[in-house]
């Protein structure tokens, strides 16, 4: 009897081992690519950020010096790059996110025919990367009289001289934010739209019978709690697309660094150090700082969404 149990156990273990092997075979191609092109680059960025490296001689360990340099001696970084990045991220991220929820919610209130057409219109700008569409905005905000905005302002008699929108520090960042918001209704927006549409109708009916009075209560007590997982997915997509399109300042103004660093974000600063100054250590430290900002933002969203449970 006892022998039988042991045998069974050994066979069981064998079958577990076989299962694990099959699973790993299924995972292997993805895992290999994932490690090569995501894990290793991130790992390299972290390790290079503690070195001095010019791509010619071997990397030289120098501790936290790159970070210290960025925080204390790189005037551009503390004065322009970091504030610009935070300003850009803290406006485009949350506003784009709320806007895509709000638009998705509005779309859910209209019939499917109208919804599909309007949803496609809203989604279209995100189809091409922000950088590719920058060319359109460059013509619209063009600094001569041929620029559309200038022409309109001109005709209305508001200005006499055309405004150099994309070359003047006070306009560049706001324009970047508008362009980024315009292109931010991407996959997160679709996820939230579909989340709202899939909420069980009876939840609403029950809530109204229980005394719910208006649309605002409806949003806060039913809609958001019922689609929290989609809200989280949407948030992460919003953060990622915000950071992914952060290069538009350079595309809009046509120069890196942008005029007086007004539209330069960390992404641009990385290529400034990496491709122009060949200081890979500092470029890597900037990468790490950027990844940390993204991670911190998603943690904040996660906490915020969890609190309402």
């Amino acid at each position, binding site marked *: 009897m006892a022998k039988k149990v042991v045998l069974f156990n050994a066979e069981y273990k064998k079958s577990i081992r076989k299962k694990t092997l*099959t699973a790993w075979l*299924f*995972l292997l*191609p*993805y895992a290999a690519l*994932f490690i090569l*092109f*995501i894990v290793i*680059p*991130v*790992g*390299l*960025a972290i390790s*290079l950020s503690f070195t001095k490296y010019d791509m010619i001689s071997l990397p030289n360990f120098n501790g936290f010096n790159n970070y210290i340099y960025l925080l204390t001696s790189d005037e551009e970084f503390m004065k322009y790059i970091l504030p610009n990045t935070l300003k850009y991220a803290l406006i485009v991220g949350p506003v784009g996110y709320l806007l895509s929820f709000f638009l998705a919610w509005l779309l*859910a*209130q*209209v*019939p499917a025919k*109208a919804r599909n057409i*309007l949803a496609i219109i*809203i*989604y*279209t*700008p995100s*189809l*091409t*990367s922000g950088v*590719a569409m920058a*060319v*359109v905005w460059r*013509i*619209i905000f063009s600094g001569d009289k*041929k620029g*559309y905005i200038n022409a309109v302002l001109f005709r209305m008699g508001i200005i006499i001289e055309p405004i150099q929108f994309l070359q003047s520090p006070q306009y560049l960042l706001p324009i970047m934010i508008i362009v980024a918001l*315009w292109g931010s209704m991407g*996959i997160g927006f679709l*996820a939230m739209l*579909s*989340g709202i*549409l899939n*909420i069980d*109708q009876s939840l*609403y*009916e029950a809530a*109204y019978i229980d005394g719910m009075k208006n649309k605002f209560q*409806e949003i806060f007590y039913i809609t958001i709690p019922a689609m929290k*997982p*989609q809200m*989280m*997915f949407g948030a992460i997509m919003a953060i990622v697309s915000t*950071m*992914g399109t*952060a290069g538009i300042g350079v595309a809009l103004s*046509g120069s890196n660094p942008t005029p007086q660093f007004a539209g330069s974000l960390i992404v641009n600063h*990385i290529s400034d150090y990496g491709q122009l100054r060949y200081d890979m250590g500092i470029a*890597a430290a900037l*990468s790490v700082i*950027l990844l940390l900002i*993204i*991670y911190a933002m998603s943690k904040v969203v996660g906490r915020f969404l969890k609190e309402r449970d």
Partner: protein
Amino acid sequence: MAKFHATKINPSRFSIRQWPFFAILIPICLFMALPIVYIINHAFKPFDELMEFPPRFFVKNPTLENFTDLFYLTDESGIPVSKYLFNSILITIIVIFCSVIISSMAGYALSKLKFKGKKQLLEVNNLALMFVGVAVAIPHYLVIEFLGLIDTFWVHIIPALAMPVGLFLLKQFIDQIPNELIEAAKMDGASEFKIYWTVILPLVKPAIATVCIMAFQAVWNNADTSSTFIDRESLKTFAYYLNSFITGTNTVASQGIVAVATLIMLVPNLVIFIILQSKVMNTMAHSGIK
């Protein structure tokens, strides 16, 4: 009893009571559509309308001049535009096909197979949803250089295949396939691979369509790979060609051609999305992160 007035989400017909929603949606949609409408109009403007002052938004006498100009310009650069286009189409097809296979296999394992470390792997992939490629452009370059992919055709393909979001969406979609179906197939003696191929894949078509769109967008619009990793002009892509053209010109006269180039980039994205729209929405219903 008070009149029942629960909001009808997803109403089946138009009603006058929906006007507040349209009143907000339509102006926003106009703003969203404006640059697109503008590009379309600009692409068909003849030379004198492009030079007009004050600039006019809509085209008066549409012409195909800018389209022919764009393709004429290509002839002068030595490599015909069809070569760039061929590269782009080939690369896009290979990437779509391979990334669907790779991510759906991994998605099946992470969803339905039992093994040690599964939970941790899922967490790692969820963390990687936040991965922003541009942030680590330089280490990425080092890895590609180390692998000897520089100036090869494969550099367009291999690095584009690992898509955490694609895997995530597929895995979520596979999660809702009932285990009984898989058990039944096992009873019939099917191997894991056969189950994956004959049971899982046909059932996750919507998620596959979504991954196709995402892969398409990532590859079709990608000009960076050509400009960073490729020296040989004959290996570069259509996106690169158009992009270099777009950024290389700034005169008003060439704006019409730039508009045509942008339009050519945009339209395939749009067409594919419209065709697969309902499948994408179906997938997104399962996109939640818990």
